[in-house]
């Protein structure tokens, strides 16, 4: 029973008892007045003999009242109050809770009704939740599909928010915008990464101009336009960029930008080269031809000129004809270099090409194919559709004219080309037949009608022939294809099934510009979690960093593909103790760059982020001592997982990285490499965040204050 109710109970009891006593007293007084003197004496005598009688009477009355009132209280006010409390639990904390129907019948009936209502309420809630979950899953699915689609595109795609922070990018964009990609740092320009600025990659003025143009067009009611511009990257590449607006809530109804980037350096250069060649050719032949024509016309017009004069003109014709021949040869040889780049060929794995051909043969020529397994590493540059049409035509001819029912496809490396063999049992084609077949149009209509096998062969370099293999008695048609080593432009091949974190649409709703950093929720910040390995433990006595490893956390997500991993030549001996810890020896660092080179790169990697390290004071001391030499200042806010762990779990004593990881259930791999430790620290940090939130620590400022307050913070390293 709560205090309030108990209080009321005793008040009511006192009221009832006093009331009854009053009534009894008044009745006794009234009786007393009506009694005669003798009767009064008798009553007085009775009372005088039993003085406790009225008291007993009062006590009995009180006990009876107490019992009755208690019973009533339990059935009415207390039952009602309990009903109210339990209903609140149903409403706020636990919709599955049911009230206990007790007390008076009426109250119990209300309880039953409330339970029925709760049942209904819970049903509705469940349904809403299920719908929300489904919608969320659908959205996630859509995003994943979109990201997967974009990651496969040949063009580079970058999506940013209005401030130019990158929300999504694909492999190709990274290759183009950060061409010297060796693990997340580049000398020439910025870094492609989620949450990073587009303007470190592309000229801000050029992007700004395109956006302005689009906004003007939009104001005129021209929706969904695309702006194009050509710009140079800092690495000197010429890019063609298409920019479109992402409409949504935001300044001026714009949520961000979609950019596709294409490296046109090579094609523009090729175009320019061809143009120059053509001009050199036309201008180069004009003069000699003019001289020849003038001389020959003169010879013709003046048949009677003197022999000496005539010989002079004839010499001119001869000289200039030779000049002309030389110029023609020169042009042709230079043009040959351009020819190769002319037809746009796609890069394709040899295995995929065989699959395409096999399908084509079966569908269009009704010929079965046995494809020999092609090496995964073999990539070719082909126009696969044209090649399919051309070879299918050939196979159909083989079936019709040579009764070939089955062919074998084989592709192999043949320096410097790839050799594609179409093999069948039977005789080889003689050159005349092959030539005739090669000149036939590949189809009656469409693309194929404009093509011949000869043209297709020409596009791929022009070398094909048919021959008989004497050892097997089988004939083959052989075609040399240009190779594309290492896959499409040396693409970064990721293990299948691992979709890198190339997008984060939540960045659309990033913290508003100008929000004071300390007040930003931790979950919305960008963190660079890093670790260093050193020559020893005393930076003040000249110990140096030998390795820096770092990973990024954006919007609460660890980006495993945006890493920094660099060894450094310390130019001093590594102490044996340290070597025992990290296993790095001076010999291993001989070829590595010095700290003055690495530190600016790391600084760029950590741009706009909060630095996080385990026992950060140690690492920061090394960085700060190097500041003067490298002229790089690390003015970033810093968080220390050691201190944060002490804040989140004050009752624990061991806040070593291994101990925390074990407590938080994080598997430990790759310890004592700077990148491995940085990864572990990042995972620890992410697990600490909810624990800190439970302590009411949700912003950077609060985390820093709490770190300051912990006792450990007072230690100096």
């Amino acid at each position, binding site marked *: 029973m709560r205090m309030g109710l108990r209080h009321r109970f005793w008040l009511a009891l006192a009221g009832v008892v006093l009331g009854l006593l009053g009534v009894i007293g008044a009745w006794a007084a009234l009786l007393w007045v009506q009694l005669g003197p003798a009767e009064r004496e008798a009553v007085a005598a009775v009372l005088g003999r039993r003085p406790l009688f009225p008291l007993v009477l009062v006590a009995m009355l009180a006990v009876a009242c107490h019992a009755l009132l208690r019973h009533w209280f339990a059935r009415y006010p207390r039952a009602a109050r309990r009903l109210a409390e339990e209903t609140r639990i149903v409403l706020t904390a636990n919709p599955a809770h049911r009230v206990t129907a007790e007390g008076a019948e009426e109250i119990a009936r209300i309880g039953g009704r409330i339970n029925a209502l709760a049942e209904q309420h819970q049903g509705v809630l469940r349904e809403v939740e299920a719908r929300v979950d489904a919608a969320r899953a659908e959205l996630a699915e859509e995003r994943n599909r979109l990201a997967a689609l974009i990651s496969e595109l040949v063009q580079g795609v970058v999506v940013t928010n209005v401030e130019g922070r990158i929300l999504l990018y694909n492999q190709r964009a990274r290759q183009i915008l950060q061409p010297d990609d060796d693990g997340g740092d580049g000398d020439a320009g910025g870094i492609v990464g989620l949450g990073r600025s587009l303007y470190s990659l592309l000229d801000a003025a050029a992007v700004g101009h395109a956006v302005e143009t689009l906004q003007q067009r939009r104001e005129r009611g021209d929706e969904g336009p695309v702006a194009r511009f050509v710009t140079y990257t800092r690495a000197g590449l010429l890019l063609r960029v298409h920019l479109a607006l992402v409409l949504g809530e935001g300044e001026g109804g714009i949520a961000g930008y979609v950019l596709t980037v294409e490296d046109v350096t090579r094609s523009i250069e090729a175009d320019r080269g061809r143009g120059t060649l053509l*001009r050199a050719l*036309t*201008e180069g032949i*004009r*003069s000699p*031809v*003019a*001289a*020849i*024509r*003038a*001389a020959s*016309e*003169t010879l013709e*017009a*003046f048949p009677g000129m003197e022999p000496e*004069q005539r010989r*002079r*003109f004839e010499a*001119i014709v001869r*000289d*200039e004809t030779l000049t002309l021949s030389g110029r023609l040869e020169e042009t042709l040889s230079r043009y040959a270099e351009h020819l190769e780049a002319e037809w746009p060929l796609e890069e394709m794995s040899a295995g995929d090409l065989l699959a395409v051909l096999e399908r084509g043969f079966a569908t269009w020529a009704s010929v079965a194919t046995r494809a020999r397994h092609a090496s995964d590493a073999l990539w070719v540059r082909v126009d696969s559709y044209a090649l399919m049409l051309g070879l299918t035509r050939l196979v159909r001819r083989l079936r019709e004219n040579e009764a070939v029912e089955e062919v074998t496809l084989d592709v192999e490396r043949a320096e410097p080309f790839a050799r594609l063999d179409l093999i069948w049992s039977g005789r080889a084609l003689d050159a005349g037949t092959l030539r005739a077949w090669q000149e036939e149009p590949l189809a009656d209509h469409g693309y194929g009608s404009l093509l011949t096998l000869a043209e297709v062969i020409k596009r791929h370099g022009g070398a094909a022939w048919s021959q008989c293999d004497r050892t097997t008695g089988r004939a083959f048609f052989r075609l040399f294809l240009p190779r594309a080593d290492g896959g499409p432009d040396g693409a970064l091949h990721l293990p299948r099934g691992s979709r890198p974190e190339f997008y984060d649409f939540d960045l659309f709703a990033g913290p508003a510009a100008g929000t004071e950093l300390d007040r930003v929720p931790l979950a919305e910040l960008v963190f660079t979690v890093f670790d260093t390995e050193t020559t020893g433990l005393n930076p003040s006595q000249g110990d140096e960093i030998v390795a820096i490893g770092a990973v990024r956390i954006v919007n609460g997500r660890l980006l495993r593909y945006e890493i920094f991993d660099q060894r450094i030549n310390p130019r001093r001996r590594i102490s044996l103790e340290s070597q025992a810890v990290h296993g790095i020896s001076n010999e291993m660092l001989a070829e590595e760059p010095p700290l003055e080179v690495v530190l600016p790169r790391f600084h760029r990697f950590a741009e706009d982020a909060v630095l996080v390290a385990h026992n950060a004071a140690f690492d920061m001391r090394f960085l700060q001592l190097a500041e003067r030499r490298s002229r790089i200042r690390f003015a970033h806010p810093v968080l220390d997982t050691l201190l944060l762990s002490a804040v989140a779990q004050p009752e624990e004593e061991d806040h070593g990285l291994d101990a925390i990881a074990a407590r938080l259930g994080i598997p430990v791999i790759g310890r004592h490499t700077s990148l491995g430790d940085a990864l572990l620290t990042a995972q620890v940090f992410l697990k600490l965040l909810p624990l800190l939130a439970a302590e009411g620590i949700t912003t950077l400022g609060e985390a820093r204050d709490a770190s300051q307050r912990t006792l450990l913070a007072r230690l100096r390293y």
Partner: protein
Amino acid sequence: MKRVLIVDDEPNIVHSLEFLMQQAGYETRVARDGEEALQGVREWRPDVVLLDVMLPLRDGYEVCQRIREDPETAATHVIMVSARGREVEVAKGIAVGADAYVTKPFSTRELVAQVRRALGDADGPAT
């Protein structure tokens, strides 16, 4: 005798032009670069200049401009004869003051006719 200044740095074409102009009855002189051409125009006062565009020292466009700027020589007929045949180049030649722009290779007969027309003696001295 009317005077034709032939400006070209390629001796083979110069030889033919010289022979043709002489046969057409004109007095000729040859300049092999831009400087020589300007000097020739100022000192020798030709009636017609056959002017190549690609010349050492000063190019044909500049030579033509200079001829037009100097009131003493402004009336000289200038026929540009050039291996550059793009439209913009022809337009530029006319814009800087050439009376005609002939691209190489050209018909010798037409060139002679053009010189004659420029000098107003279509029937001209017999060849």
